[in-house]
């Protein structure tokens, strides 16, 4: 066998050529004969009883297909975790934009007019719109206490340590909602026939989530539901759970009309109605020794889940486990909860709770440094987790890791020390203030705790008589490079050229359930299974004496031809097996939270302009240890894209709420970074090796979302001396805080030194 170095090489993206020629097929590019267009009639109030639905005049209603909750053959819910979210509201609505009726027509323009003349009368019910209102229970809108889920993590005896602390540092931090803003809006096409059941084609991340939801909605067995993923134009978590809703809607219209139905959201509908990042509030109370060692502390983390439970419990879980950052806590108590508000449900978004709680942790670290009187660098060095120590969930770090070294290298790459000194001197005169800030953080790869065991993922690899190998997974490509990386792993495992390996389009009638494409799990967990399944092909061919231990691709082709001629087909499957030494207690929230963590130190350099009150990021260094880098260009692209999205999270992207409704649901007034707004994003990797993933790869997709916001706000504080604790930080927020008459009162804060 020739020595292959496909893993680690910058091979061409599998579907790349189709993308650069415009030939790639996204759902809106597909047309089925006789197809209708579908539209959704949504609630205009935050909470109320539906009293009357009026179909306005001037519309030939007999031309339209109309679907209401009564048309649902199965259970009126989007099956996910708690099954509390209806597919169509029947009697009450719990948030603005909640779907109530569906319409279909051949003409999209007529469809729009019809939606406009349907008026719904409501009997208003009291509603809550913020975390605080939900906690105060001014109205109970979900369950008995407005709480979807709560966690308590306890390590050591926190109550005993406040007396011995030299300093007790308190802080309160907020993060806002953020829209994923994939450039391709959500969309689905559905077809129905009584014999074969439901088929949907769509823009989505998790084919088997949609599959499960449609089975429940239509009361159909699994073989009568087929889900096909089309090329997907960005997702970032935003196409994790909501596509189940759109698939259900399109399929209900298809069933009632007997024709295929296309349902494509426009940008305004997508932004107003679909999920966003959970807004959060974090409170820290940290006991610190005289020399800056964390003795322990209390962390309270609350997220706004919106009107239904959806994925909030899982987002909360990740936020909870990441709340203590990459630091050693001798003792800690972390209390967290996800609460209900009458807004469209918040959902999955790259980072999944971790960017929120890590923002707080990293701002708190800079605060602790100030109180103790040491530098932001030194406070981190003194508290970094080390191999052999345990995390807040008492997971002992057994992998190789060295945060000290990462930090030193990041400081060197960013020329931190020189700049820090220079800015302190040069900032005094003039309206332009420069600052530099750091964030050190971690991101757990794969599902939390026992999650991967429950997923029980299955992966297949098959061959044809021409010796072509095909990877069979439900893991979707939506830009991150799934297709490419999984084909690289299979090619490497089989010792074949990359060109000989392809990946099947995710279609639930073709691919097994390799789990959802989320949680930075694809390269590490699914990749490892692809490697095993590919090895299985090789083993079968060598066991049947068709292939020697060492072979050329010609010999592999000949062996495939012979095997297929004799047996018809060869498929090899691999199922997830939990590492034997992993222990997780769901009750106490204790144990091995993740099979592996990625580690990172990011450095941001900013200019704050006191004339325009704008913040510009001038330079950005992103250094991480993510295990083996499977593809250098794709890995770098993941980090750059994540950093860009996180710069938006920190400085540009503000969802404006009015009575639980997004009022700036357009790209004109919800601002994401353009090519003019971003600094050079300089990406570096450390490779230390990890035992769990394929070739020692760990997750990478979400990590870069976690660090930039705190690094930037730490830099803004370095530049201005003002302790900002809330993102997004827009010019108007800076103006409020920095104009002379408000500056002083803002700086005073809830910090108490007890030395």
């Amino acid at each position, binding site marked *: 066998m020739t020595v292959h170095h496909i893993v680690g090489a910058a091979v061409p993206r599998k579907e790349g*050529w189709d993308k650069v020629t415009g030939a790639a097929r996204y759902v809106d590019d597909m047309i089925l004969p006789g197809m209708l267009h579908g539209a959704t009639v949504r609630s205009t109030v935050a909470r109320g009883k539906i009293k009357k639905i009026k179909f306005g005049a001037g519309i030939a209603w007999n031309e339209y297909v109309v679907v209401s909750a009564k048309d649902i053959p199965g259970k009126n819910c989007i099956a996910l975790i708690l099954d509390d979210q209806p597919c169509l509201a029947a009697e009450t609505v719990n948030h603005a934009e909640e779907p109530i009726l569906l319409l279909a027509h051949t003409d999209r323009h007529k469809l729009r007019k019809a939606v406009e003349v349907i008026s719904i009368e409501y009997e208003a019910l009291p509603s809550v719109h913020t975390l605080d209102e939900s906690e105060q229970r001014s109205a109970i809108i979900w369950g008995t206490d407005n709480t979807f889920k709560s966690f308590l993590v306890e390590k050591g005896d926190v109550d005993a340590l406040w007396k011995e602390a030299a300093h007790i540092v308190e802080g309160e931090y907020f993060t806002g909602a953020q829209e994923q803003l*994939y*450039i*391709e809006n959500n969309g689905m096409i559905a077809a129905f026939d009584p014999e074969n059941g439901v088929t949907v084609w769509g823009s989505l991340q998790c084919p088997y989530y949609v599959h499960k939801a449609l089975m429940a909605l239509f009361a159909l067995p699994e073989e009568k539901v087929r889900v096909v993923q089309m*090329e997907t134009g960005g997702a970032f978590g935003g196409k994790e759970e909501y596509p189940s809703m759109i698939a259900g809607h399109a399929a209900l219209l298809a069933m009632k009309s007997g024709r295929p139905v296309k349902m494509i959201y426009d*940008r*305004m509908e997508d932004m107003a109605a679909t999920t966003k990042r959970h807004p959060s509030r974090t409170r820290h109370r940290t006991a610190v020794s005289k020399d800056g060692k964390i003795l322990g502390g209390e962390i309270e983390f609350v997220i706004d889940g919106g009107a239904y439970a959806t994925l909030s419990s899982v987002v909360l879980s990740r936020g909870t486990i990441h709340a203590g950052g990459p630091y050693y806590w001798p003792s800690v108590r972390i209390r967290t909860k996800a609460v209900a508000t009458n807004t469209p449900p918040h959902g999955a978004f790259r980072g999944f709770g971790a960017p929120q709680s890590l923002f707080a942790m990293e701002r708190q670290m800079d605060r602790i440094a100030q109180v103790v009187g040491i530098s932001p660098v030194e406070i981190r060095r003194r508290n970094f987790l080390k191999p052999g120590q345990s995390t807040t969930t008492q997971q002992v770090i057994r992998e190789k890791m060295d945060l000290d070294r990462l930090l030193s290298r990041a400081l060197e790459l960013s020329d931190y020390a020189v700049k820090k000194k220079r800015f302190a001197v040069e900032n005094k005169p003039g309206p332009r203030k420069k600052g530099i800030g750091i964030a050190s953080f971690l991101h757990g790869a794969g599902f939390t705790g026992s999650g991967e065991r429950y997923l029980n993922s299955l992966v297949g690899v098959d061959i044809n008589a021409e010796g072509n190998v095909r990877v069979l997974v439900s893991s979707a490509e939506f830009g991150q490079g799934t297709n490419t990386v999984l084909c690289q792993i299979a090619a490497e495992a089989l010792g074949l050229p990359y060109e000989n390996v392809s990946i099947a389009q995710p279609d639930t009638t073709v691919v097994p359930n390799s789990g959802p494409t989320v949680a930075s799990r694809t390269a590490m967990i699914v990749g490892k299974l692809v490697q095993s399944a590919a090895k299985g092909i090789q083993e079968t061919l060598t066991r049947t004496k068709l292939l020697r231990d060492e072979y050329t691709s010609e010999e592999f082709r000949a062996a495939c031809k012979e095997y297929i001629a004799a047996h018809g087909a060869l498929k090899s499957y691999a199922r997830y097996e939990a590492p034997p030494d992993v222990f997780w207690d769901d009750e106490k929230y204790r144990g091995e939270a993740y099979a592996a963590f990625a580690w990172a130190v990011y450095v941001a350099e900013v200019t704050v302009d006191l004339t325009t009150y704008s913040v510009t990021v001038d330079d950005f260094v992103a250094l991480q240890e993510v295990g083996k880098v499977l593809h250098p*260009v794709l890995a770098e692209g993941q980090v750059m894209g994540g950093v860009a999205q996180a710069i938006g999270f920190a400085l540009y992207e503000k969802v404006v709420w009015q009575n639980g409704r997004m009022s700036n649901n357009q790209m004109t007034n919800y601002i994401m970074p353009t*090519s003019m707004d971003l600094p050079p994003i300089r990406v570096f990797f450390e490779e230390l090796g990890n035992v769990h993933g394929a070739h020692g790869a760990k997750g990478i997709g979400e990590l870069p979302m976690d660090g930039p916001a705190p690094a930037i706000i730490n830099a803004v504080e370095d530049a201005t001396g003002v302790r900002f604790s809330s993102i997004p930080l827009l010019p108007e927020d800076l103006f409020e805080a920095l104009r002379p008459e408000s500056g002083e009162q803002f700086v005073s804060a809830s910090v108490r030194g007890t030395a």
Partner: protein
Amino acid sequence: MSLLPAASAKWEVSFTVNGHAKKVLAHPMERLLDVLRNDLGLTGTKEGCGEGECGSCSVLLEGMLVNSCLVPVAQADGTSIVTIEGMAAHALMKLLQESFLECGGAQCGICTPGMILAAVHLLEKKPQPALTDIREGLAGNLCRCTGYMQIFEAVAKAARQRVAQ
């Protein structure tokens, strides 16, 4: 006024698309984007925002880079339009496509056709662009995946290669 057909009636619009003469019957206010995609089957032109912010629907109209979601089809009457599909033979195209692939300029791919058209437009005006020219030239095209860096690199590389040729 009275000489014009009613706004709700369909007009016959003639233009050249990718070098071919085309006639379509469409409402005058129909978006050029929809006519290209639905009537002419040119689905390489994408809709991102529908209001001229994201540039995914970029096409070249009389050599100008325009957002086809903002162009009523009546306004395109008599013009020459080039979409991503019509660029296949363009001298710059192959260089850009290859450099986008090599440098990681395309991730999810939905902004890519518009981005490449914007890059063609830029390199035709400025064959040897500085980084600031590239940033400005692509400022009307939003990408949510890449953070733009690898796109800048791809455009710079294609420009270098063309000069070298």
